[in-house]
């Protein structure tokens, strides 16, 4: 399970950790949006500088972010190569059939690479510094207006947070069941596709069974602790929008303005 760096929370403390998760959540999405405004060296440099500065502020080793690239590596390399060799140009440096290499193509490929890097870094920053429960709180808070159209926001948020809470438990359970079946002679990585798929049945069924038993026990426990249907509940977890969050918004607004300026430069 060690490959799942992308999407995993890393306990720590820094200014980025302390930002309001709602702000972080929305700013991340906003940032990914404005990445597409960049169109020249200066604008990409600006984006990269912003991202690297945020990474620096987070006090997290840059290695974690580079690891975050790994699962996307194939996609990145593929797209970059595609841009590099298929960008049409009137003045190619090298040509072979439909393939051609040009300065334009290389520049565009470079931009694409940068785009990937900043987007992956910024979203890795969000997940590394924000607990799953904070993300679910943010979603609840952001979706709040939907209550007026009778969307059960609190119930959905509670289900989401419980689901998140049980992910590690189910991972443990999966590892345990896999070990037990391997001890009974199952070889997961062996044989043809059909055999491999079949070898997962002895894991999936026990996993279903234990998920249901957990769900049943949990439902009983929740009911015994007075959970009705989410109506009239108060909330213990509270998010606090602080001054620093206002500043962050200011910074990102400033970034947008700068980006628009250098873009038409």
């Amino acid at each position: 399970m060690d490959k799942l760096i992308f999407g995993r929370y890393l306990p720590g403390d820094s200014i980025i950790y302390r930002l309001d998760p709602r702000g972080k959540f929305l700013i991340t999405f906003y940032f990914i949006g404005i990445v597409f405004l960049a169109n020249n060296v200066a604008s990409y440099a600006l984006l990269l500088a912003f991202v690297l500065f945020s990474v620096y502020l987070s006090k997290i080793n840059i290695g974690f972010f580079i690891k975050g690239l790994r699962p996307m590596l194939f996609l990145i390399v593929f797209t970059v190569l595609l841009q590099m060799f298929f960008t049409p140009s009137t003045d190619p440096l090298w040509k072979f059939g439909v393939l051609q290499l040009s300065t334009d193509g290389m520049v565009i490929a470079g931009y694409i690479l940068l785009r990937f890097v900043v987007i992956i870094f910024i979203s890795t920053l969000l997940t590394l510094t924000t607990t799953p429960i904070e993300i679910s709180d943010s979603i609840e808070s952001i979706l709040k207006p939907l209550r007026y159209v009778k969307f059960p926001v609190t119930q959905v948020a509670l289900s989401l947070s419980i689901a998140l809470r049980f992910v590690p438990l189910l991972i443990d359970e999966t590892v345990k069941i896999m070990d037990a079946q391997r001890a009974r002679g199952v070889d997961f990585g062996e044989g043809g596709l059909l055999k491999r798929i079949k070898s997962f049945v002895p894991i999936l069924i026990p996993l279903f069974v234990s998920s249901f038993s957990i769900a049943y026990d949990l439902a009983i426990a929740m009911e015994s602790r007075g959970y009705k249907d989410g109506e009239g509940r108060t909330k213990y977890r509270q998010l606090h929008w602080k001054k620093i969050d206002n500043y962050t918004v200011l910074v990102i607004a400033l970034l947008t303005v700068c980006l628009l300026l250098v873009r038409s430069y």
Partner: protein
Amino acid sequence: MANIISIENLSYTYPESESPAVDNVSLEINKGEWISIVGKNGSGKSTLTRLIDGLLEASSGTISVAGQKLTEESLWDIREKIGIVFQNPDHQFVGATVEDDVAFGLENQGIERDQMVREVDQALKLVDMQDFKNRDPQSLSGGQKQRVAIAGVLAVNPEIIILDESTSMLDPEGRETVLSLVKDLWQNKGMTIISITHDIQETALSQRVVIMKNGHLVEDLTPAQLFVMDDLKQYGLDKPFTTLLKEKLNFDPEYQDEEELISKLWKLN
């Protein structure tokens, strides 16, 4: 002493089953009493406690808790008076962190946030888990998880705590800390404790033991009487250590707890 729970002719049959899981059970439980319920797996112990908390609806019979009859209307009031700590510590943890979990019951009651913060702190202090407030459940030991579960129950100030085999999945150390905590709550907070257990030594902590078999309540006695019964095996119980030892020494089978046996042996030597 006043009754806190009175059960009359209670029966319940699971939908998929033919024979009743609880069969015409009547039981009075006194306020401030510690009562153990023992019996083999499937004898109806857990079903009985679920009926008391209104988690299952009885087929027939009545239940009153603290003078209030259990009905559709009184259900939620009654649940506030009863806290249950279940067997599997992993299956009852609702919150993402220790404090969130303790707050769950308070949130359900719609308590103001300021008061919640106070109550959560207080409950965590009672179970000596205040240093773990921000921890996630996966990083706790089994005994610690159960203490958090007890804190979650205590936070809403119940009069009755039901322990549904709460220590059976713990290591000896975890079991020890949980039991001494319960003992403390019972002595100092005047709570009523209903404890379902397979551990005969654990029943020695209680004042009274009821035995269930095939849905019936077959015995109602003191731990002292239970310890000298000779057919404990049919109720899924071990012979207590002291009884076994006395048998080996050819002593009379009268009841003695460990201390009494030690002082008797002392005098003999």
